[in-house]
């Protein structure tokens, strides 16, 4: 599988990130990098700071210390919409879709940043606005085809089962044609077959579009199967960083995360 993929240079570099909320230290001195085209996972027990790390990367949280370099551009502070404009898209641990809107419309919102026409033109659906919408719809249809969700194209998202909602959320992130995709527990709460499907889609996204993927996941077996490299966090500290085999063999990780055998 991995032999024909191209892993490029460093796309994202995280250096010495520390983040605290009042007295609570969520992250302390975290450093790692993400290379172009790889599947990079962040794992750790509950409250380890995984989602906080993701929130720092896409500009939602502003770490007190450290810096983040994306595509060679170092930044101290940035807002989520700037991250999106730079080519970072994400999904959320608790699905954040527009429940009353159809799958199609939800995915269409992923194209928002790429739309050039102003609100008035779009409302009138006239001339260039119309042509633009047709173009965007094409991309959206390709995403729908890719994720095989044609049958729910017009179904309000709120009526869909959980596993499918997750897929729609991935679709919305993909519609933005991101360079880097942040996935926050994409497989949480899924059954075995849904997990397998989701893995397939993640690997296909990575493989076919060359999208770099940063993944937070609870399910160890999934992470070890699909990741190129894994960062392990525990109580906001970095425990390990390396390929799945190294991480699996790391005694700290075994103790902290996989658990010491008690019986």
């Amino acid at each position, binding site marked *: 599988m991995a032999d024909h993929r191209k892993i490029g240079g460093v796309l994202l570099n995280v250096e010495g990130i520390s983040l605290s909320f009042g007295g609570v230290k969520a992250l302390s001195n975290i450093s790692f990098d993400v290379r172009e085209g790889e599947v990079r996972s962040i794992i750790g027990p509950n409250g380890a700071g995984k989602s906080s790390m993701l929130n720092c990367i896409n500009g939602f949280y502003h770490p007190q210390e450290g810096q983040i370099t994306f595509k060679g551009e170092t930044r101290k502070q940035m807002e989520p919409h700037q991250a999106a404009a730079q080519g970072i898209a994400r999904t959320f641990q608790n699905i954040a879709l527009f429940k009353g809107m159809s799958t199609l419309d939800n995915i269409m919102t992923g194209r928002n940043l790429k739309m050039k026409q102003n609100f008035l033109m779009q409302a009138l659906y006239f001339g260039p606005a119309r042509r633009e919408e047709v173009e965007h719809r*094409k991309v959206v249809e390709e995403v729908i085809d890719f994720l095989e969700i044609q049958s729910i194209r017009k179904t309000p998202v709120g009526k869909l089962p959980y596993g499918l909602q997750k897929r729609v959320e991935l679709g919305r992130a993909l519609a933005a044609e991101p360079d880097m995709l942040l996935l926050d527990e994409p497989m949480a709460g899924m059954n075995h077959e849904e997990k397998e499907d989701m893995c397939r889609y993640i690997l296909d996204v990575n493989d076919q579009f060359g999208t770099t993927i940063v993944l937070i996941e609870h399910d160890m077996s999934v992470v070890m199967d699909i990741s190129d490299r894994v960062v392990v966090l525990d109580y906001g500290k970095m425990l390990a960083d390396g390929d799945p085999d190294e991480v699996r063999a790391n005694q700290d990780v075994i103790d902290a995360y996989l658990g010491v055998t008690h019986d």
Partner: protein
Amino acid sequence: MADGATPSQELDTFPKLLLENARIRGTRPASREKDLGIWQTWTWADAATEIRALALGLKALGVERGDTVCVCGDNRPHLYWAMTAAQAVGAIPVPVYQDSVADEMHYIYEHAEAKFAVVENQEQVDKLLEIKDRLPALKKIIYNDTRGMLHYDQDFLDSYEDIQELGRKYDQDNPGFYESSIAEANGSDTCTMLYTSGTTGRPKGVILSYGNMIDTAQNSIDLEGLSDQDEMLAYLPMAWIGDNIFSIAQSYVAGYCVSCPENSDTVLEDLREIGPSYFFAPPRIFENILTTVMIRIEDAATIKQKMFRYFMGVAKRVGMDILDGKSVSLGDKLLYGLGNLLIFAPLKNVIGISKVRLAYTGGVAIGPDIFIFYRSLGMNLKQIYASTEASVFITIQRDGEVNPDTSGKPAIGVDLRIEDDGEVMFKSPGVFQSYFKNDEATRETKTADGWVHTGDAGYIDNDGDLRIIDRSKDVGKLNNGAMFAPNFIENKLKFFPHIKEAVTFGHGRDQATAFINIDLESVGNWAERKNLAYSGYMDLAGQDIVYELIQDCVEQVNRDLAEDENLSASQISRFLILHKELDADDGELTRTRKVRRNIIAEKYGELIEALYSDKTHCLVEAVVTFEDGRTDSVTADVVIRDTKTNMPTQAAAE
């Protein structure tokens, strides 16, 4: 336009019919497919060009006359073309069920001695790669959808387009080859080979000639007046004989357009968008549609519910007569007209059957309620009795003479005969040539003078209509000597929307008992309205309140059975709800969803014994096979319930 210009002497193969259609109706649509949300159309001329390129591409790859080419995937115009393309160069296309697991696929590829395969996509390629080592004869695999195929560099893999390109080159270098290759075949040559799913044993390869397919198609077109103005939606497996007649043979002969759904989950939406005029569906689909409608009605506003109930009552009373052209009082006619305006027409439009002027169902018995529902809405739904060995049609209900309990009169050209033991036999132009590499089975099924055993027990009633009772080999006896017809009882059970599958036992026993599979959608919706929490099938199936729901259904069937003196002894005395859904992947159903009794009896022997003991619980473990062939096991404590049976009531109910 369809006939008259078709001297059957000449147009005796599909490739010849294709050329003719391209000539006389080149600009009319031949196939449609929804791609990226937009319907794409190919005219007969387009189809002929595509098929020519692929056929010659196959030739250039080394396909010889008589080679078998397996075709596998969902209904796609490109795959239908592949069938005709193979035929054009003298090869024999063998469509394979697209949801077969690798092992089943291996059996068919090996048995058919397939040298080439044309498949839909990566999923099918992966399945073949898994078994490729064990298929030395398989030389090339051609895939249509290139998605995900970027990194597959095996040299026996080629894309459909590349082969077509190869074919166009071959055409330039060998002008006239295509035409002469088509002219070489005639009506008695093998057209296709279809593997029957078979409720017992390994699948058998049924060899059908062009004559079988084309004559059968022509006869049914004459009977029903189909023309090139008709529209068909192709959504049932390509490996099934019905699809070969409805989507290929009849389309080629009558010249009508066949539309393929976007994918297998979108069929109902696509049905609405295409609005076919000619439609086939097995009872299960009509049932599903009805269930969905009923569920939505339950959730509708009170006034809508009341209107629906009132007008459906009117429809039930007079709708069938209106459809059959019988006289109805003016008041009823007006009432029905109003119902049509307010309820029937909008409802048919939502389902997508507004334009249907001819619909068939068959395969298994359809519930009278379901059948009557559609007919009373004004849709001309008719039952057929069909088999692969007959190229589909054995009997067809005639317009104006439709009785829900029968399968109708023999189709044009078909002779029927009932054996002494009650078995139905037929002889027709569609009778298959033989089973591939299985002379013994051929001799068992087909007599020297061309009569075919159907294996079904039935009789011809006073109106000359065929009535099927059950599979003759399934009809058994209870210990007290009374007849036990399992399918008959199972069908009665399955007519309840809450029951998806049922398996009954009784042969060689004192009483009849049953396994039930609940319908997750229907019971799930019911549970939701009752605010009942459940985590999945197994959980829901085990709940007491669900048992009570099903018990009501079973006791209702018992009351019905009590009224029939032949069957009153086979009332269900005990039943259980299975902890898992019966599934074709586990070998419990055939790919066409018929129950495989032997396998179920073997697998759930423990449960059957429990049914015939006084146990109220039984702990079981079952193996589940996933689509990729892995297995896992589940354990469950299955509850067994007694049901009320009734004394025979004779005809007192009348």
